[in-house]
C-alpha cells in the first residue's frame, strides 16, 4: 500500500467510501445514509443513553471500524503521533455545532455527497452552503485566524479514544443491559454486523493513510488549487452515483427523497456552519474520527463535542425532520454561526496582539 501515491490512495478511499456506503444501504442501512457520521453519532448517543429515542439507538459498527481502522493503520505505518492541547473547549463546541448543522440539514458532508449521488436535488443548497462555509473559512485562515498549535503529549493520551472504540465493540457483542438497541426505525435498519465492521475498518485504514477529508479537500483546492484530497472527494460522489445507477437506487429530483426537507435556506445555512466549523477545527466530522484514531487528542475532544451535539440534537430537537427544520434547530444553527465567527475574530485579534 505504501507504494501507492497519495492521489491514488485518496481516490481509492473515495471510491471505497462512496461505493461502500451505497452497498451498506443495500445491505440494510437507511436509504441514502449508508455512511453518515452525524446519524451514526446520534445512534451511538442513543445506545449509551445520552438521548432517549429508542428508534435511534444502535452502536454502529462502521463508526467503531473507522476509529480502530485508523488506529491500526497509523500504528502500522508509524504515523501514530500523540499531540493535543490546542483550544480544547473551543474544539469541543465546534464539534457540537458541526453536528447541529448536520442535524438541521439531515446529514454530514459524506451523506450530502451520497444524497447528491442518489439524485437528491434537495442537497444542492447544502452543497452550496458547505462550499461557501469552506471558502469563508479559507479566507480567514489566509488572514491568519487559526487555532493554537498542538503540542506533543504523553502516548497514553492517544490510546484513550481507540480504547473507547474497543469498549464499544465489546458492548456491541456482549449487549449489556445498559446499552440500548431499537427494533424499529433507523436503529433496526442496519447491514450485518460483521460486514459493517469490516467496511468500517477498511475505510478507516484507507482514510488514515490518505488523509481524506471532505472539507479539507475542498479547502485545499480553494486555498492552493491542490487536488490530492479533492480528487478523493470527487471520487466519493462519482462512485456513489455509479453504484446508485447500477443498483437502481438513483431517483433524480426533489420529491419523495428519503430523509430530506424542502427548506433550502436552512440547508444552506446549516452547511455553511458545518463547512466553517470544519475549516476552523481542521477536518469534517469523518476526519475528526480518523484523526482521533491516529493519536490526535484535539480531534478526540472534538469527537466528544460531536457526541454531545448528537445527543442534544435529539433531546433538544436541534434538527430537522422530513417536515422541515425545527425552531430550536434554526436558533442553534444561528448560535453556531455566531460562535464560529466570534472564535475567528478573537483568534485574529489575539494574533495581531502577539
Amino acid at each position, binding site marked *: 500500500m505504501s507504494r501507492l501515491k497519495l492521489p491514488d490512495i485518496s481516490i481509492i478511499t473515495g471510491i471505497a467510501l462512496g461505493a461502500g456506503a451505497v452497498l451498506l444501504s443495500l445491505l440494510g442501512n437507511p436509504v441514502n445514509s449508508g455512511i453518515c457520521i452525524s446519524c451514526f453519532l446520534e445512534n451511538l448517543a442513543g445506545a449509551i443513553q445520552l438521548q432517549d429515542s429508542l428508534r435511534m439507538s444502535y452502536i454502529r459498527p462502521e463508526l467503531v471500524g473507522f476509529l480502530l481502522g485508523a488506529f491500526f493503520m497509523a500504528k502500522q505505518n508509524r504515523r501514530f503521533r500523540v499531540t493535543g492541547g490546542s483550544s480544547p473547549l473551543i474544539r469541543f463546541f465546534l464539534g457540537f455545532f458541526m453536528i447541529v448543522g448536520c442535524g438541521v440539514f439531515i446529514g454530514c458532508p459524506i451523506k450530502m455527497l451520497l444524497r447528491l449521488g442518489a439524485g437528491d436535488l434537495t442537497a444542492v443548497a447544502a452543497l452550496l452552503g458547505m462550499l461557501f462555509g469552506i471558502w469563508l473559512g479559507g479566507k480567514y485562515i489566509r488572514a491568519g485566524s487559526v487555532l493554537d498549535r498542538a503540542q506533543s503529549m504523553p502516548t497514553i493520551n492517544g490510546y484513550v479514544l481507540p480504547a473507547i472504540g474497543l469498549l464499544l465493540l465489546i458492548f456491541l457483542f*456482549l449487549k449489556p443491559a445498559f446499552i440500548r438497541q431499537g427494533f424499529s426505525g433507523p436503529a433496526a435498519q442496519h447491514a450485518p454486523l460483521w460486514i459493517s465492521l469490516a467496511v468500517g475498518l477498511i475505510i478507516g485504514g484507507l482514510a488514515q493513510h490518505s488523509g481524506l477529508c471532505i472539507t479539507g479537500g475542498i479547502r485545499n483546492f480553494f486555498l492552493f488549487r491542490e487536488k490530492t484530497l479533492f480528487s478523493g472527494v470527487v471520487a466519493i460522489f462519482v462512485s456513489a452515483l455509479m453504484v446508485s445507477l447500477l443498483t437502481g437506487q438513483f431517483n433524480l429530483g426533489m420529491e419523495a427523497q428519503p430523509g430530506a426537507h424542502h427548506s433550502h435556506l436552512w440547508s444552506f445555512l446549516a452547511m455553511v456552519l458545518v463547512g466553517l466549523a470544519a475549516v476552523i477545527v481542521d477536518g469534517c466530522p469523518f476526519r475528526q474520527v480518523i484523526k482521533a484514531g491516529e493519536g490526535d487528542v484535539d480531534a478526540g475532544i472534538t469527537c466528544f463535542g460531536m457526541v454531545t451535539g448528537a445527543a442534544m440534537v435529539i433531546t433538544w430537537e436541534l434538527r430537522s425532520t422530513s417536515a422541515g427544520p425545527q425552531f430550536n434547530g434554526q436558533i442553534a444553527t444561528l448560535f453556531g454561526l455566531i460562535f464560529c465567527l466570534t472564535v475567528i475574530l478573537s483568534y485574529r485579534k489575539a494574533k495581531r496582539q502577539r
Partner: protein
Amino acid sequence: MGIKDKFFGNLLDSVTFVSLALLIVITAVMLVQHGVAALQEEGAGVSRKELAEEMYQKRLEQDKKIYKEVQRLFGMRQYTAAQKVLQKVQREHPDNPRSFIYQARLHYNNGNMVEAISSYRQAVDSEPDFVDNKTPLFLGEEIKDNLKAAKQTLAQELKSRPEDTEMRKALDELLYLQRRVAGGCE
C-alpha cells in the same frame, strides 16, 4: 535494562503493576461471566427482539379485534356505516393510531383527498412504525399508492384554484409523507 528491572524497579511500581494486572483479570472475568449469563438468559428465555415481536403481534391482534366491524363494512363499500362505527371506536380507543389509517382510507375512497392526506399525516406522526418496513405495522406501500393517486387529483385542483391555501398545505403534507415513506434515518 532487563524486563525484570523495567517492571519491578521499585516496590511502588511493582505493587501498581500487580494491582493493574489483577484488576484487568477480574474485570475480564466479570465481563465474560456477565456475557455468558446474558447469552444463556437469551437462549433460555425471551430476547429483547422477541419481546418486541410479541408486542407487535399483540397490537396487531388487538387492532384486528377493535376494527373488525369497520373493516367488514369497508370491505362491503358501505363507507357511511363504516364511518359511524369508526367514530364509535375512536371514542372508545382515543389513543389508537390505526383509527387515522381507517379515517384516511374512508376519506380517500370518498374522494376527500385533502382530509385523507391530513389523516395519513396524523397516523404517521402518532405511529412512525406505519412507514417502517422493519416492523409488522408497516403500511408504507398502501400509503405510497394512495398518495400517488391523491397527488394527481390535487395537482388538477390546484390548476383550477391556484390561490387555494388549503390545497397548497395539503400538497405540502403529501410531499412530506412521500419523503417519510421513502425512508431515511428519521
